[in-house]
């Protein structure tokens, strides 16, 4: 009985994860300029990975009893790491792209750095 519920949970998380991964990739494809794409990619990926990791955790814990603690610790670590690494990484990329003055989508409203929008 328990593992049926667990299975359902695993599948749910899997779908959750896969969906976000797909969003990230798709956003990367469709959005016009660098900054938009960056926006989509990093957010989607972080959630996607965490979803998948939780699914994997449940799956492994359920499958065999060996060192569950180890797996859980790893999963938590990964998720935490993702939540830190991805934003920092994309921030850097954005700054670098700005410096390299990557092509900007024409519909841009304000360029914070050079002419700050005065309240």
């Amino acid at each position, binding site marked *: 009985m328990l593992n049926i519920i667990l299975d359902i949970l695993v*599948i749910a998380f*899997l779908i959750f994860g*896969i969906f976000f991964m797909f969003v990230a990739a798709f956003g*990367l494809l469709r959005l016009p300029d*660098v900054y938009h794409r960056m926006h989509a990619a990093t957010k989607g990926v972080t959630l996607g*990975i965490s979803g998948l990791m939780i699914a994997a955790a449940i799956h492994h814990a359920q499958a065999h009893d060996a060192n569950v603690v180890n797996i859980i610790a790893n999963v938590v670590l990964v998720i935490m790491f993702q939540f830190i690494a*991805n934003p920092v*990484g994309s921030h850097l990329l954005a700054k*670098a792209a700005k410096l*390299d003055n990557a092509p900007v989508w024409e519909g841009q409203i304000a360029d914070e750095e050079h002419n700050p929008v005065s309240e």
Partner: protein
Amino acid sequence: FTIDICIVMIAVGMLMCVIRLLKSPHLADRALASDTLGVELIGMVILLGMRFMTSAFIDGVLILSLLSFAGTVAMAQYIARPHLRHKQVKSNEKLEDLA
């Protein structure tokens, strides 16, 4: 669990579309694409891990994420690098006209 087979397929689909971005206009895009591709791979590994029921892959995933983060940081450094070189070129002109 035949389900994970389809999951693997989805992962496949995403990887494909990311590659298309590799041909995008600016270098920063490519950097972003490669970063996302790395993360897709992580997803792929997790799924494979589940498929083969081994728990050894989990450590791999952590290392993978660490590495892909380092990759992005390095890429960012590189993209900012040409900025430095302009600096150098400018200073050369200064030196020449001084000499």
